[in-house]
């Protein structure tokens, strides 16, 4: 059950992944290091206090969220269920499903609890 709007949106979402995923993954990994080894609530202060860098990071960060929400909504629209099953995702994305999983992985890194990163930081003896 995919209407024209869904198809048009999918046409943007799929290629946008190549632009968004690498930069979002790089950012989340850098933020994970920051949470583990530096101040976990004032992330990359030297860069984010400069508007040009701050806006760039914000654009990548927000657009990655928009990408994942769009992927979810498109799957919901095709399956007509708010909790799509794995097979619904497979039906929706086919061979492109790996992009969704990899994006989920990047989000798992970003949304992992801060205490976990602090423990990893302590285990690695990284300077704080």
């Amino acid at each position, binding site marked *: 059950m995919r209407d024209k709007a869904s198809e048009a949106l999918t046409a943007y979402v799929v290629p946008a992944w190549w632009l968004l995923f690498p930069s979002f993954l790089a950012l989340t990994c850098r933020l994970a290091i920051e949470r583990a080894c530096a101040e976990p609530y004032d992330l990359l202060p030297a860069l984010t206090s400069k508007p040009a860098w701050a806006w760039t990071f914000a654009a990548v960060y927000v657009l990655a969220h928009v990408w994942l929400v769009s992927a979810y909504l498109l799957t919901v629209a095709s399956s007509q269920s*708010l909790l799509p099953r794995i097979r619904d995702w497979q039906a929706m994305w086919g061979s492109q499903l790996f992009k969704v999983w990899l994006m989920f992985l990047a989000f798992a890194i970003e949304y992992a609890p801060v205490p976990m990163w602090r423990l990893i930081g302590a285990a690695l003896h990284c300077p704080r």
Partner: protein
Amino acid sequence: MLGALEFFHLRFAGRPLLLFACALLPLLVARRIRAHRAIRLSSTSTQSWENYALAAAGLVLAAFAIVAVWYASDSHFFDNAEPSVVAIGWLFHAGQPVYHLVDSAERYSHIYGPFAFIPHGLALATFGAGIVVAKTLSASAGVGSLALEYGALRWRGDPVRAVIFTGVCALLLLLFRNYSFWTRPDPFELVMVSGCLWLANVGPGDFSAVATGLLSGVLWNVKFTGPLYSLPILAMLHARTGWRGTLTAVGIALLVAITPFAAFSNVSFANYAEWLRLSARTGLLLSTLRQNLEWAGFLGLPVLLSYYAVGPALRPSGSEWRNVLVALMAGLIGIVVAGAKPGAGPYHLIPFIPIIVFVSARQSAGLLSPPADPVVPVAALAFLFVAGLIALAQQAELVTTMAERRSLNEADDVETFAETHRGRIEMGYGTTESLTFVRPILVFRNNSYLIDQPAVREQQLQGLDLPRATTDAIASCRVKYWLIPKGEEPFSGLNGYAAVFRRPLFPEEFRRAFHATYRHVETTAYYDVWSCGAIQ
């Protein structure tokens, strides 16, 4: 109980989406276990569900009104920038600049637009100079926004559902402690958004366009992010009136937004633009950005749930409704980013709440039988449970803090001192801040205002140190008496913003000048009085 709420507030109240997931999971498991007699609405039980919802909505609306009126009925503030808005409102009425020069001795300018202050100035001029007057105005705007929301909902639906959705709106506003009725610009934004929602959807097209434009102009002026809140409303207007009506509204809004700068000589656009430019230099906080995204996701849930609550045939469809949803999402994204500036946060999303509730009500208007997707009622229950829990924790914090503050009588102390002493008296600052919140009382008397600590804090974040002129004003005894919270070192506050964390708000040179010029001469019930040395 209060301890548990405080713990919850500190640890979890900022994670609504996480809480929602935690609440949804057991409910889904329970639904699966009891699949044969699941938590599904049957067509015969819809009426009883509506009755329960109506009663709950009534309770939430009553709670909102009671807390707002209770908060407004006393001269104590919760937040440190609330007195700043009242003081600047009075300065507007007194003909003083709302935006002073960047290097002037006065330090009180903020980046709110003139309409954040003008209503307070007018109210204080009309009803008398008093903190309660300003607080009543803000609380009226907060409660009034709910009345307008009801009007907008009633126009499109039956009265029972209008009350229920207005109750949901009140519940979502209570998630943000007292922000919807505090003495800062947010209640004005709320009432303008609710008013626009109503006007954009009722009456003849030309009337809608003009009236929406008038209110949008105020909204755009109050904060420079105002146009982002208008996007979904303009999309609704466009659906009714086409481009002609939409462009008329935008044109009128622009005219209204610039009116205060053109109409009042003490409202300088050049100075305002300069303060905005300086504010843009502060960058963004990624941790706040993440928080904003989580809140935007949580607040967006009703839109998603209501869309899938009804079957495909009953959903609003067509490009016009899609434009409304796209505009809402674009506005949310814009505010999520703009609200990630240091000192901002998820509360910048508050003006979207009436729109989200309105959109949700319209999408679920056809809901007469069990929701099309059985997950919807379970998710809605989890959403309302989490919203209720966070609102309860937020309100508990507000009430306990304010109950403690209301037991103090520092306003009378300041009034008594001012009655018995001649010359200019100003509120100074120590290490803590809450005792300085009555400073508008002195601004009402002086018709001038030298130092506003929240403004100094913001300006330091923008890279602006206290100018030489301010230190000179101290050294030249421009103020005869400074009231400093009792037992505290004068002007010893530290900045709490991450980028300038624990940096002294007032430089050493300023404090040296203060101690060289002023002597501690007496003590009132709440304040140490520092008097200009020359008069000893």
